[in-house]
């Protein structure tokens, strides 16, 4: 798989371009302290997606420690991380990588950073959209919305038909009765950001 690793890091770095408070900000706002990381790279070795991401997980930590805000927020790693905890369970410093990646994704959305994996973000939004409507995920609706966005009707058509035939995909969503309670949780955040 292609990587664009470190391309922007090869040029001389001007400290005025760095956000030296980034790590402190992540700790203060999201409660994740990455300054304990000593870059043993255990997480990088164990991450199931390390070949697909542009930076291994500990390099994202490094970028944040050194203040490369834009590079961290625009990396594909933050979107490809599925939060499987394979890395955290092996991390000698017990760093919660999944919570760290959550923090970066949310910061990237808030700041309107360029999203390296827009399909993944769209998928998350489609999932949340069905939760907001029904209180539960409705797989068929998620698939259809996702496909409609991409204008991609043909990939996975076999899988979809098979699942439909096996009644694994339901036409009608299973609905929560007290749907107003669910909708209440989707109120815009105090900072005005609507995520969905």
């Amino acid at each position, binding site marked *: 798989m292609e990587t664009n690793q470190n391309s922007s890091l090869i040029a001389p770095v001007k400290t005025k371009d760095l956000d030296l408070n980034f790590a402190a900000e992540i700790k203060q706002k999201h409660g994740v302290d990455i300054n304990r990381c000593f870059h043993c790279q255990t997480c990088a070795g164990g991450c199931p997606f390390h070949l697909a991401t542009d930076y291994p997980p500990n390099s994202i930590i490094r970028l944040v420690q050194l203040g490369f805000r834009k590079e961290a927020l625009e990396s594909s790693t933050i979107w490809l991380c599925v939060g499987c905890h394979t890395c955290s369970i092996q991390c000698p410093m017990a760093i919660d990588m999944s919570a760290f990646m959550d923090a970066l994704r949310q910061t990237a959305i808030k700041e309107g950073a360029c999203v390296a994996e827009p*399909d993944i973000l769209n998928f998350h939004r489609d999932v949340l959209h069905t939760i907001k409507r029904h209180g539960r995920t409705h797989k068929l609706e998620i698939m259809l919305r996702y496909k409609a966005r991409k204008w991609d009707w043909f990939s996975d058509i076999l899988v979809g038909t098979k699942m439909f035939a096996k009644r694994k995909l339901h036409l009608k969503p299973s609905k929560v009765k007290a749907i107003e309670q669910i909708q209440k949780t989707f109120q815009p955040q105090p900072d005005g950001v609507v995520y969905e």
Partner: protein
Amino acid sequence: MNKQSAIDVSYFPGCSLASTATENNLSLINLFNRLGINLVELDDWSCCGSSSAHCINSELAFDLATRNISLAPPGRPLAIACPSCLLRLREAQHHMQNDEKARIRYEETWGRPFDPNLKIQHYFELLDKKNLLSFSKDQIQKLKGLKFVTYYGCMLARPPSLPRDTKYHGLMERILSSLGATSLPWAYTSQCCGTFLSVARPDIVTPLVNKIIRGAQDAGADFIITACAMCHMNLEVRPTVKPTVPTLHFTEIFSLALGTDDYKKWFSKHLVDPRPLLKAKCLIN
């Protein structure tokens, strides 16, 4: 065990078990009935928030998870079958146990007091507490000739905030081996299945699950026994290896070994049909 002595346990099925993995749900309820546990579904439960909520909005993830916690009646444990839903609810509960602001948010949002003693458990924990390995004479031969590998997926990996949560490695092997089946060693028992990347990046997930399927073939397994409905789905849908290895939910094979005849509705739901092999092994008619 007879019905009268059945104990009630609250149950959160989650969206996968309620839709794409009904066979997992039906076989779980069936299994627990046999073991004298009555799973009482939480009334009007909602999605735990899934991976998508915590990825992009932590407050929403907290609210979606805690609504379900607030629905659990006091005095009995809350059992969950989906490892991912379990993590969402456990993390939210842990957050409330350690942060007063989170408790206040919970009580204000849901209008119910926080119960710090509620036990939120994977159903494995309930199994582990029962003395399950004393099966009857005819049961212990039930799965003879069946060779399996277990697939826990990321269920065994917990975030650093929950270091004390039990991991139950070996539980499926112990139980199925006591019923006569042969557990085979392999490398992929706790390899991540790729979860939601299966939708947006199947190009990443396919090689990953192919490796898992090939690993099971190399080990000589008839079936991959899964602990998670999401993993189960990815292992059925995404591999391109032909022929593939059929997967069974742990609840299906366990319930079958205990003598259920309710399986017709379960096995017909699989995208990779396990019936020919189950028939060849004389496990179903």
